[in-house]
């Protein structure tokens, strides 16, 4: 299982993802520069968080034109895995690899804090090691995580079971108070119809070591390992 962590100008969680994959999980991991156009040797690509191109214009809007994105698209079309975290999720939305778009948080403020996530779907390569309905404590850190999709898209995502993570309260209820950013349906993470592309606003790489306060995030990365290593 070989991971590639894509580095865009302004990415700043690239090293954090690399650290978890390489040092915590001991997997073969490279950085992939955004001007590269060959990603064929990787099984899973990680689009990390940060402020690619300063988040200017819209989050992810400029990064999606980076040369590497054509390769990411082909990689996804070939059924290989892509996970976009925070800014990486925003890039996946802008590039159309996932449906919907991001608006500014309803508080209009950047928010960095731990949230509780409820795992809605477990038949994805990214959550298969986790029980359905399980609660994960993972931090968010974003100014634009207010997910929006129009009604028809919401319906089809629902029908295809693409809504993977939702913001929940400590008891697992999906409430407005538990929604940190105004996201439609408390959506925190979604996958595509083929289930090989996953985007989420929370940062699993920040909660993958007990020393940091939670290791719930590592469950997501471990799920990915299982998939590939079973194949």
């Amino acid at each position, binding site marked *: 299982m070989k991971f590639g962590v894509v580095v865009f100008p302004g990415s700043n969680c690239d090293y954090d993802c690399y650290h978890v994959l390489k040092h915590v999980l001991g997997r073969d991991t490279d950085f992939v520069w955004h001007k590269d156009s060959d990603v064929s040797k990787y099984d899973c690509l990680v689009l990390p968080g940060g402020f690619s191109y300063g988040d200017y*214009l*819209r989050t992810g*809007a*400029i990064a999606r*034109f980076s040369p590497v994105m054509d390769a990411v698209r082909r990689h996804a079309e070939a059924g290989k895995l892509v996970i976009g975290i925070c800014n990486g999720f925003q890039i996946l*939305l*802008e590039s159309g690899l996932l449906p*919907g*778009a991001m*608006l*500014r*948080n*309803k508080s*209009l403020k950047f928010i960095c804090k731990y949230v509780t996530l409820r795992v809605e779907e477990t038949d994805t390569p990214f959550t298969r090691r986790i029980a359905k309905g399980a609660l994960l404590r993972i931090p968010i850190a974003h100014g634009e995580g*207010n997910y*929006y*999709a*129009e009604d028809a898209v919401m319906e089809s995502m629902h029908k295809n079971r693409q809504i993977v993570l939702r913001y929940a309260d400590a008891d697992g209820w999906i409430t407005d108070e538990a929604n940190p950013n*105004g996201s439609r349906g408390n959506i925190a993470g979604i996958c595509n119809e083929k289930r090989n592309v996953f985007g989420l606003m929370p940062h699993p790489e920040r909660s993958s070591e007990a020393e940091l306060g939670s290791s719930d995030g590592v469950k997501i990365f471990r799920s990915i390992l299982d998939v590939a290593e079973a194949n």
Partner: protein
Amino acid sequence: MKAKVYVTLKKSVLDPQGKAVQQALSSIGFGSVKDVRMGKYIELDLGSTTAPEAEKELKAMCEKLLANTVIEEYRFELN
């Protein structure tokens, strides 16, 4: 040739920023303001080109980059 592009959120999309601005206006004495919608205003210098050409290019720029048509609408003016 110069162009002005206006990018606004679609009517169906909630505008948190507009709402916050409206509340702020109301708190400083402009309570009669009924609605506020925030958008982007982009001025471009297109260099030397013709109007039809510019029109075509602008449309492409908006579709590809300047607006996200999932949530936004755009219009532009040339002069």
